[in-house]
């Protein structure tokens, strides 16, 4: 009984957030939070540009989303697959174990760190 309620709440939250990010442009509106890491250090964090990327994505602008935050665009299919595996963890433990292989997780972590480094060097 608890699980459907949580799923419903998350879906409602996502819908509201989706509408907000569709209607308002984070690059011109002052409503959206700015990255603390960027304002404190002057360097971009791995997630910088995610809000603008989501806005672009909701408007069907894949190239724009990639420009704002390439990591987010790459991570979305991966996150969707992981969420699916997570929801079927007890029924399909093999898929879950495969997706959660330490090698894959380390590769993802390495990708995040390299992306962090490169985007500050080349100002992506």
């Amino acid at each position: 009984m608890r699980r459907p309620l949580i799923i419903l709440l998350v879906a409602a939250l996502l819908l509201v957030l989706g509408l907000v990010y569709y209607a308002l442009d984070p690059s011109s509106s002052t409503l959206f939070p700015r990255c603390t890491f960027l304002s404190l250090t002057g360097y971009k964090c791995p997630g910088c540009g995610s809000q603008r990327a989501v806005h672009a994505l909701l408007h069907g602008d894949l190239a724009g989303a990639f420009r704002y935050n390439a990591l987010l665009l790459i991570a979305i299919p991966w996150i969707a697959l992981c969420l699916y595996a997570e929801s079927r963890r007890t029924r399909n433990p093999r898929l879950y174990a495969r997706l959660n292989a330490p090698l894959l997780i380390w590769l993802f972590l390495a990708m995040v760190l390299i992306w962090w480094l490169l985007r500050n060097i080349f100002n992506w």
Partner: protein
Amino acid sequence: MQYWINHNGVQSGPVDLDALKQMGLTSDAYVWHEGLSDWVKITQLPELQGLYEMTEAVAEVSQAGPVTAGQPITEFAQEASVENNPVAPVEQPQAPAGQPYQQQPYQAPQPQYAGPQPDEAEPCPPTNLVWAIISTVLCCLPTGIVAIIYATKVTNKYRMGDIEGAKRDSETGAWWCIASIVLGIICQPLVSALPVWLASMR
């Protein structure tokens, strides 16, 4: 009570308690009956305690001991099966050996499909990987990276058979995910809104 058995990768059942005692199960067998959510090791059911110990002792004696030591035990086993035979014909028509899963009188979801293999009896504890990734990509905090590292620890410990350790790391990782999502979604907007506020106060 009817039992289903998964022993050395071979499934059988349903059988009643008396028939189960005749099967010569060892402590690595898995058992399921109505009311259990999943297969459990035979050692975890109190009513079956001692049963596998006896069969294991018999196996050890008959392997190690000479033929003379083995004979009384087989005789005993034969006697026992003869004693229990009057019960068996009553039970057997309900569960023909050819199609054991077709005639279940009640819902038994687990034994209907192949059933989890014994090595999957305990699924891997949640690694929280998704939440770690989401909090790293969206909240951009080092706490998300800690959560990712905990995800690897969960899988590593689970694969080494350390279920308890995996569960502990799973819980710790979950707290790191919660911390990074709370910090990222609640604290970060506050911090970024503070300069705007201060400017408007002047």
